[in-house]
């Protein structure tokens, strides 16, 4: 049978037949009635607010929202900051940082998460102890761990200082103080926070793979490396996609990571678009620019996420 046939159809197309009783029609509509509040809430509080933001981006809103449309000046400014940016504007820094951070953060988290999951899947004694160790960073607010990381990465207090005290005086690690490298320290802390969670997702995926497939591959003479590369990793595709969604969402919302760790970095060199947006909306009283940057962020997310959602959600013939 096709997928459609196994679904229970709720929109009855009664034609030329006696009308169902009010009660039974209510029964039929019940699932929709139950879903309606959630959906309505989403429409109002997400899409309504998105529209509101889009509207504001075309106004001259400063400290407070103003509702007189005044044209795309905010976008023109962002455009100029993107393409005539020497020395780099805060906006240019934010979006290039987003590129660097987004790519490295997602890539390293996926790679490290998969790697740890594979290691942890080798019938490890003490897995029950290791797993929470890898997972716990996700449980802590960065308000808290940001301070610890800031210390650790500070050349005068942390790793560099410690290694110097231990006698390795030529050791040098001052990325957090360097405008060109500070974004990579944000990556390190971000990876620390999220990779354990990704590890858990991969671990779950690995445990879900049919053992017989693995045996078959081993009998076929695949080496361990080949086994993972050719069989296991392709089978984990759905996990990759889910992990990607989780990481992309975390990357885009990374705000306090930057603030707690770097206070924005030397000369604002660690900014991400969410910092830009917050800064312009709330601190610089340029709400129109903040809104416009939010709109551009949302458009970028749409461009990345919607094709994924489409491919995942369209009816697949079985």
């Amino acid at each position, binding site marked *: 049978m096709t997928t459609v046939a196994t679904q229970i159809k709720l929109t009855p197309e009664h034609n030329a037949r006696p009308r169902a009783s009010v009660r039974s029609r209510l029964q039929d509509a019940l699932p929709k009635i139950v879903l309606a509040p959630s959906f309505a809430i989403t429409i109002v509080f997400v899409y309504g607010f998105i529209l509101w933001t889009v509207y504001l981006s075309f106004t001259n809103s*400063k400290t407070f929202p103003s509702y007189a449309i005044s044209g795309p000046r905010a976008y023109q400014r962002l455009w100029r900051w993107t393409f005539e940016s020497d020395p*780099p504007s805060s906006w240019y820094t934010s979006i290039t940082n987003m590129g660097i951070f987004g790519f490295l953060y997602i890539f390293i988290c996926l790679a490290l998460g998969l790697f740890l999951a594979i290691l942890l899947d080798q019938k490890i004694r003490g897995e029950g102890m290791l797993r929470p160790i890898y997972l716990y960073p996700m449980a802590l607010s960065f308000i808290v761990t940001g301070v610890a990381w*800031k210390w650790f990465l500070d050349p005068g207090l942390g790793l560099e200082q410690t290694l110097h005290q231990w006698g390795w005086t030529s050791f040098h690690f001052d990325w*957090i103080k360097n405008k060109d490298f500070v974004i990579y320290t944000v990556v390190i802390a971000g990876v620390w926070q999220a990779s354990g969670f990704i590890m858990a997702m991969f671990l779950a995926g690995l445990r879900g793979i049919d053992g017989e497939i693995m045996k078959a591959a081993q009998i076929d003479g695949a080496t361990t490396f080949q086994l993972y590369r050719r069989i296991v990793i392709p089978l984990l595709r759905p996990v990759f996609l889910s992990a990607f969604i989780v990481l992309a969402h975390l990357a885009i919302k990374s705000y306090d990571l930057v*603030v707690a760790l770097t206070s924005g970095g*030397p000369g604002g060199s660690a900014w991400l678009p969410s910092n830009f947006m917050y*800064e312009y909306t709330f601190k610089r*009283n340029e709400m129109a620019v903040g809104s416009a940057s939010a709109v551009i962020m949302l458009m970028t997310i749409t461009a990345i996420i919607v094709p994924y959602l489409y491919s995942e959600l369209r009816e697949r013939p079985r």
Partner: protein
Amino acid sequence: MLRKLLIGTALGSGLAFAAHAQDVKEVEMLHWWTSGGEAAALNVLKEDLAKQGFAWKDVPVAGGGGDAAMTALKAMVAAGNYPTASQMLGYTVLDYAAAGVMGDLTETAVKEGWDKSVPAALQKFSVYDGKWVAAPVNVHSVNWLWINKAVMDKIGGTEPKTFDEFIALLDKAKAAGVIPLALGGQNWQEATMFDSVVLSTGGPEFYKKAFNDLDEEQLKSDTMKKSFDHLAKLVTYVDPNFSGRDWNLATAMVIKGDALVQVMGDWAKGEFNAARKTPGTDFLCYRFPGTDGSVVYNSDMFGMFDVPEDRKAAQVALATATLSKSFQSAFNVVKGSVPARTDVPDTDFDACGKKGMADLKAANEGGTLFGSLAQGYGAPPAVANAYKDVVSKFVHGQIKTSDEAVTQLVNAIEDAK
């Protein structure tokens, strides 16, 4: 939206008024003074009010030098839940007043004679459209040097009177193996220092035209370029790990003798006080070389919101207590700043405080009291932050030359206006 909000609030407050015939004996206060010393200073006010029978509903939101608090305030105002008062800075007061959400304290102000005792420069921010909307708590001045006396003695330095003498002093410290200049590499600290550099390089007239009037001629002048050169020179005396450092950690370097001097506002004195250091014997306070006679200020204000009638009595009590001479003295002794009214006796203040009060009075009378651009008293936040961006990028090397810095500054300010 705001208009709708206001109607809603009016409606809400009307109903609330109907419901409560009695006044609400409570002040709701949003602030970001959460550290020990600040909280202690604010406690003086809380106790003052308690004596009059008013409860204190605390809304502390720390972080980012008031950023988090201002975001919370914006949300509260958008929701129509105005606090009785909120700690606010400069142009923010005027923005909220323009939006029509501030109360009117003119009556109290007249009765208490605020317009005579509060410096005119401050009134620019506490009075909107002829109405008193905020109570200034203090006046901070930005153009100070804070010097460790022991280090100064060791290297045999004397008070620098010009920028060149200052550089010579820093060189001595460098030669003695001390970090000459303690700086926290955050944009507001860098820009705060630059305020003083510009005042020193160009003089009071130049500072006013450039940083308060935003005169383009001055902004792109050679004097501005020279100011950036001076800033570049100063940055060479900073230790390599300065980037991202909090200001109080920089102050701590001076207190401990790791560094000779910090260029910082007088809130730094609160740190010396907390460390039980005495001016004159443990540390020295000098005006930034070449800025004696002028004061670059910022001021904490308590913005008074348009609260329902039944909360007005509490608000008036709060405002009156805030500007009372006793509180002004007690608070500012702890905080390191000077009173917001010029008629407070300086008996309880230490040497630096006394000098600060005298300087403020003189500057007020002499017309050399200028708002700090870095602290949001020279121009609206959009401009001030654009300015901080340029200074910070210059300090950290994204902007490489003084010429470029001047061009960028002019463009950024023009863009943000």
